[in-house]
């Protein structure tokens, strides 16, 4: 075997601390090395040409390049090798920059180490097998999980590009939290007015298959080739017959048994209900837990009034499977609840703010409903306890957020803005009212955001107090808020009629379960992890799964929409070609030796190891062994390290190659 060694100076980067000519001279005498050269910039055109010329002239079989990290230029040198007729996997990189010159000062020692690194690479490349890239087909359909504004945007973008979309939403209607908002910052335009047309567009789009009241149950397969099982929960309404006339919901005698979650529990809903009048689809759901029929077998008022015979009490959940190429996860967030949590819960409640027992201490979303024209008070400011108009409201920011003691160290990012909006909306309607905001810092980065906060302070007279509230107590229908103005260094007590808590945005309750179903990583708070915090913020580390909106971290509407469009673009990039090319660095099982202990299956972080049945000539199963799904394998090597019988190997990094490398040291 003829091997060529090429040592790069990387300008001064390597050359400063590694004597490159000495390295290349020393490597000339290594067994198998035909030629060893050094050059100022090996990645430049002349450098690459030098490599190509030597390969052709000396008829080299493999090359070693001593240069920067393979992350940087492995691709470059592989391409040069391919141009000159060598298999790209017969190229080894000895990292002389990050692993040597950048971390050492002593020139002699660093040079010795560089020679060692090259020698190791030479021994490995001698044993390298030529590999070919893996091609996999692509199903050009997208699954969008979550029908909030992020999911809606992503679905519309992908569908408008001509690809089919399956949009799954666990609630009876799409719309998400945005449909609950009264008005949006910084323009104060009505949230529903801008959102509902998009919801209808989703419903009517010929390329979008909308599945509400449904949840993703199982995800199998890999990038371009997922098989997804979706549970369609029983609505107990025949969707094909229902016209959405709403007669059943108005006639249902169950009035005060179930809280209306769309109204953030500030109102009740009947047993058969549509979450809100603008719901898409406008088809009700029967809540089995409160419906009289399911308890006593009587009532059936809805059946009597429905002119279309759409009520179907014995409807069951159904499982639907879909073939999918790309998954966009847009499951959003929920608000932290200050209530005392049960023993063992990771989340702590707020005893000092009354653990949620004061009726007029509400959270941000509840205040949105109170402020909303379609809300339980028809947009009039009335406090929940006695329906009186509050004359003094205290807004408290960072409740839960930036609070290590409660378990959330992060900033929820949007509360500064929506609190300013809340105070502004209140002042616009209650002119003689007083609004106080307790804040720690005002974080108003964004177009027209800082101006918006200043407007609240300067034009609407909202009083901002820098300090965290220590305690809220109730006294004669007033709420005594104890704080400190840390700027004036003065203790402050306000007797408020109502208190609004800007509670933290936290991950959805089942966020981690869904992540495990799909196979994507999440952080300690339950937010989904992006592949790279700077350069790959949309992709998860699992191929073909993209993230959009607040399921990744707290986000406001424009950011969620931007991220959704980016995720849609990523899915479309995937659909740009009919076949996907993958690196062949994947694990492979030696079927003869595998004892079927499945330790590899347990340790694989990507769920790439499957069970394969070995059958004899008569079709009788005689043993079960591990099998690696090439589409899912990311080539991390965890399985090869754990296999007790050494019968699973990573192509390009097999035991022989790696041991030879170590032995050369």
């Amino acid at each position, binding site marked *: 075997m003829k091997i060529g060694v090429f040592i790069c100076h990387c300008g001064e980067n390597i050359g400063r601390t590694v004597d490159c000519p000495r390295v290349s001279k020393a490597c000339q005498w290594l067994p198998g090395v035909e030629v060893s050269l050094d050059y100022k910039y090996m990645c430049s055109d002349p450098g690459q040409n030098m490599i190509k010329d030597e390969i052709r002239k000396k008829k080299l079989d493999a090359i070693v390049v001593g240069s920067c990290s393979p992350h940087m230029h492995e691709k470059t040198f592989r391409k040069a090798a391919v141009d000159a007729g060598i298999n790209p996997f017969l190229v080894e990189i000895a990292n002389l920059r990050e692993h040597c010159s950048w971390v050492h000062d002593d020139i002699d020692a660093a040079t010795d180490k560089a020679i060692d690194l090259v020698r190791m690479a030479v021994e490995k490349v001698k044993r390298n097998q030529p590999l070919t890239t893996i091609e996999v087909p692509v199903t050009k359909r997208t699954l969008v999980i979550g029908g909030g504004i992020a999911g809606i945007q992503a679905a519309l973008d992908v569908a408008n590009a001509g690809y089919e979309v399956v949009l799954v939403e666990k609630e009876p209607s799409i719309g998400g939290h945005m449909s609950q908002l009264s008005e949006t910052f910084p323009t104060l335009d009505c949230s529903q007015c801008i959102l509902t047309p998009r919801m209808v567009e989703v419903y009517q789009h010929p390329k979008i298959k909308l599945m509400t009241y449904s949840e993703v149950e199982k995800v199998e397969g890999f990038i371009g080739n997922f098989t997804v099982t979706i549970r369609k929960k029983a609505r107990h309404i025949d969707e094909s017959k229902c016209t959405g006339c709403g007669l059943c919901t108005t006639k249902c005698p169950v009035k005060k048994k179930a809280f209306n979650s769309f109204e953030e529990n500030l109102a009740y809903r009947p047993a058969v209900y549509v979450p809100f009048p603008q719901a898409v689809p406008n088809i009700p759901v029967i809540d089995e837990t409160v419906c009289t029929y399911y308890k006593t077998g009587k009532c059936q008022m809805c059946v009597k009034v429905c002119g279309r015979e759409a009520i179907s009490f014995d409807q069951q959940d159904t499982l639907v499977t879909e073939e999918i190429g790309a998954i966009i996860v847009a499951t959003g967030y929920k608000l932290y609840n200050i209530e005392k949590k049960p023993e063992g819960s990771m989340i702590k409640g707020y005893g000092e703010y009354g653990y949620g027992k004061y009726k007029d201490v509400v959270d941000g979303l509840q205040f949105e409903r109170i402020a909303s024209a379609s809300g339980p008070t028809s947009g009039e400011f009335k406090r929940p306890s006695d329906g009186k108009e509050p004359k003094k409201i205290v807004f408290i920011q960072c409740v839960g957020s930036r609070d290590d003691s*409660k378990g959330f160290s992060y900033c929820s990012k949007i509360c500064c803005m929506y609190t300013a909006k809340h105070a502004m909306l209140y002042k616009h309607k209650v002119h003689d009212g007083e609004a106080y905001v307790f804040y720690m810092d005002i974080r108003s980065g964004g177009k027209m955001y800082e101006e918006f906060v200043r407007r609240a302070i300067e034009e609407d007279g909202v009083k901002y107090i820098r*300090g*965290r509230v220590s305690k809220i107590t109730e006294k004669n229908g007033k709420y005594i808020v104890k704080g400190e103005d840390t700027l004036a*260094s003065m*203790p402050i007590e306000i007797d408020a009629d109502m208190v609004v808590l800007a509670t933290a945005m936290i991950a959805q309750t089942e966020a981690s379960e869904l992540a495990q179903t799909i196979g994507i990583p999440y952080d300690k708070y339950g937010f989904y992890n992006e592949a790279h915090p700077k350069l790959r913020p949309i992709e998860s580390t699992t191929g073909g799964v993209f993230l959009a909106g607040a399921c990744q971290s707290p986000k406001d509407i424009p950011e969620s929409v931007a991220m959704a469009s980016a995720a849609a673009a990523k899915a479309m990039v995937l659909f740009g070609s009919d076949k996907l090319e993958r690196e062949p660095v994947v694990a492979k099982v030696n079927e003869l030796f595998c004892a079927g202990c499945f330790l590899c299956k347990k340790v694989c972080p990507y769920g790439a190891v499957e069970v394969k049945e070995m059958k004899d000539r008569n079709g009788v199963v005689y043993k079960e062994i591990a099998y690696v799904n090439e589409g899912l394998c990311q080539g991390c090597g965890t399985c090869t390290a754990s296999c007790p019988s050494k019968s699973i190997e990573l192509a390009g990094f097999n035991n022989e190659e790696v041991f030879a490398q170590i032995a050369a040291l």
Partner: protein
Amino acid sequence: MSSHNHQHAHTIADDIAEKTFQDVSLCYQCGKCSAGCPVRYYMDIAPNKVVRLIQLGFYEEALKSETPWLCAGCQTCSTRCPQEFDLAKFMDAVRELALEKGVEIKHKDILKFHEAFLNQIKRFGRSYEIGLIAEYKMKTMHLMQDVDSGPDMFMKGLLEVIPHKMKDKKSVKDIFKKTAKK
């Protein structure tokens, strides 16, 4: 503590970190401690500001403040702190340092109360209220102060005539010996 390898002189902030096992940089000055402090109204500067002065290196101003001496050690602040900074412990350290550095203490009576309290512990191994009252009154000559609440406390059994017995007084004495400063 510094991440850039350069040495810096040992400061009061370092002393506090050593005494309390927590770094003053933890405090992000939200003021929740001051907001809930029951004796805040009597203090010359707010509790969070004492931390701020230490953070900024205004040690003299911090050590001279009345606030650490007025702090009752009720730990409301420590309980509610979002950063889990133990402010009561911090105040203890500031008081210690003020004594070590020989700063003039404005509230001498409070210092005497602390001393009287510790003397009982030293003597009996645990707190002895009557001894504490007697010693405090002798030290300060506030002979008639709060005398009217005495009978009530006595009737409620809060003032035991004979000090509680303790098995291992020696260990407590050893603690005093070890921690005593010359």
